[in-house]
């Protein structure tokens, strides 16, 4: 079975994001970038399937500017076999990404697509569900456990009330949550090896997809900050302040 893993390059989760003074977006120049953490978990899940012999090939795919190659290389260094870059400089909305991925799925015919539940730049949490809808495939979102069964799978989902188990035939779309696994660090030899792994480059028009945006970003602004308050010296003082000053208890 072939497994396809869509990955996105985003600002590193440890970086404090700054809004540009002209409110056109966030500052991206000289900012450390990395593979979206949820995508790392997705790659790890796919590579483990390959190691377990349930997956025959792991293909990573990314849509974005040339620099998205970096995230593909990270995925290849973690153990994916080859990459596909859908190259373009236009900002892509989840619907456009889902349409591009649908076209890739139709070419590659994977048995499973494993992706992140959310890209931590736009915090949209949409692409996997959209891709599943466009393909008419089942979806297991926000998963923390996966069990491949005969021709299908069972997955445990993290939901607001706790955990939920669903089962479905394959092909299917999975979106992963934080506790599915702990992604490995790529070793130096594997990073070197990854440089030789093949990456195909396509354009949205090669795939026949119109990626024009539906949503215009009018501005990006900084949220109102919170100021540090006071330090209290004791539990008694804290309780007194909460009762008489803040009046919240």
């Amino acid at each position: 079975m072939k497994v396809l893993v869509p990955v996105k390059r985003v600002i590193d989760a440890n970086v404090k994001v700054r809004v540009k003074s002209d409110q056109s977006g966030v500052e991206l120049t000289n900012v450390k970038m990395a593979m979206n953490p949820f995508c790392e978990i997705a790659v790890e899940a796919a590579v483990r399937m390959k190691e377990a012999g349930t997956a025959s090939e792991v293909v990573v795919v990314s849509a974005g500017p040339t620099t998205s190659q970096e995230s593909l290389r990270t995925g290849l260094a973690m153990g994916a076999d080859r990459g596909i870059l859908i190259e373009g400089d236009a900002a892509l909305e989840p619907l456009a990404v889902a349409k591009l991925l649908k076209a890739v799925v139709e070419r590659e015919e994977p048995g499973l697509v494993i992706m992140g539940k959310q890209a931590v730049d736009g915090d949209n949490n949409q692409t996997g569900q959209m891709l599943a809808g466009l393909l008419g495939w089942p979806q297991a979102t926000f998963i923390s456990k996966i069990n491949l069964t005969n021709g299908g799978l069972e997955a445990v989902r993290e939901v607001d009330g706790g955990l939920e188990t669903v089962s479905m035939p394959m092909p299917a779309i999975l979106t992963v949550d934080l506790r599915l696994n702990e992604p490995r660090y790529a070793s130096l030899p594997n990073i070197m090896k990854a440089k030789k792994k093949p990456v195909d480059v396509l354009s949205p028009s090669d795939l026949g997809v119109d990626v024009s945006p539906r949503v215009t970003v009018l501005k990006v602004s900084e949220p109102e900050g919170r100021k540090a308050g006071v330090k209290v010296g004791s539990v008694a003082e804290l309780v007194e302040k909460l009762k008489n000053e803040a009046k919240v208890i």
Partner: protein
Amino acid sequence: MSILVVAEHDNAELKPATLNTLGAAVELAEHAGGEIHLLVAGAGCQAVAEAGAKIASVAKVLLSEGPEYEHRVAENLAPLIVQLAPDYSHVLAAATTSGKNIMPRAAALLDVQQISDVSTVESADTFVRPIYAGNALATVQSSDSIKLITVRGTAFEPVADEGGSASIETVAATGDAGLSKFVGAALTESERPELTSAKIVISGGRGMQSGENFAMLERIADKLGAAVGASRAAVDAGYVPNDYQVGQTGKVVAPDLYIAVGISGAIQHLAGMKDSKVIVAINKDEEAPIFQIADYGLVADLFQALPELEETL
């Protein structure tokens, strides 16, 4: 054109998040005009429809019942939303795990770019939503003819759940897509208020050191009528279940009082609680970033401070 709100419920009761979503719909209706309709799709959920009909802001309840809707399976609910959406200018759902699961699937089938996690309604087509863990706010304008939106509950006041007498109209169910099956759920049982609607939340982090130690927070929570939450580190370590997680990728809360105990204050955690009215931090490290946003900070060992707090309350 009217606004359709997808009700969140468990076939017995309407979830509070629905009332906040209706709050957003009321604001939207001031710009867009039209009535607000509530879609109650489920199995054996007549009582939920009746509760929905009592909400003053709801003009009509659409009730669609079928076994395929019992567990809110996205593959089955999305086609129903797709079928109803063309009669509406906007379709709204709460940005809960259920809304996040179902709405994008419906949006893709409608060829609409959904707007996720809306925190402000600026006009009929312009909305504000947090991005980058709430470190930035994007004002976005949609050009889609139908707008599909998930709503950040903490950003909108809930509507009153009484004062109305809407009609209930039955809509035929769309059938089982036969794609995925609900196997079972392990839901966390608790007598405490629900995290996202609690007036007071007390959360523990890695500093709690074990699941057993969360009992210290629970006793305080019971004295205050509070809900108990946690940081990702505490959930990852297995101290508490996943549904306790507050943050960018967990639950967003904005209670009157949020007490963070043994939590350092990473941006991803702040994303889920920084809109709380009053924030208290208890941490032994006076340099912990949580103190930069706390209204009241107590630099102390939590193993001393918590028993004392319980005693004082």
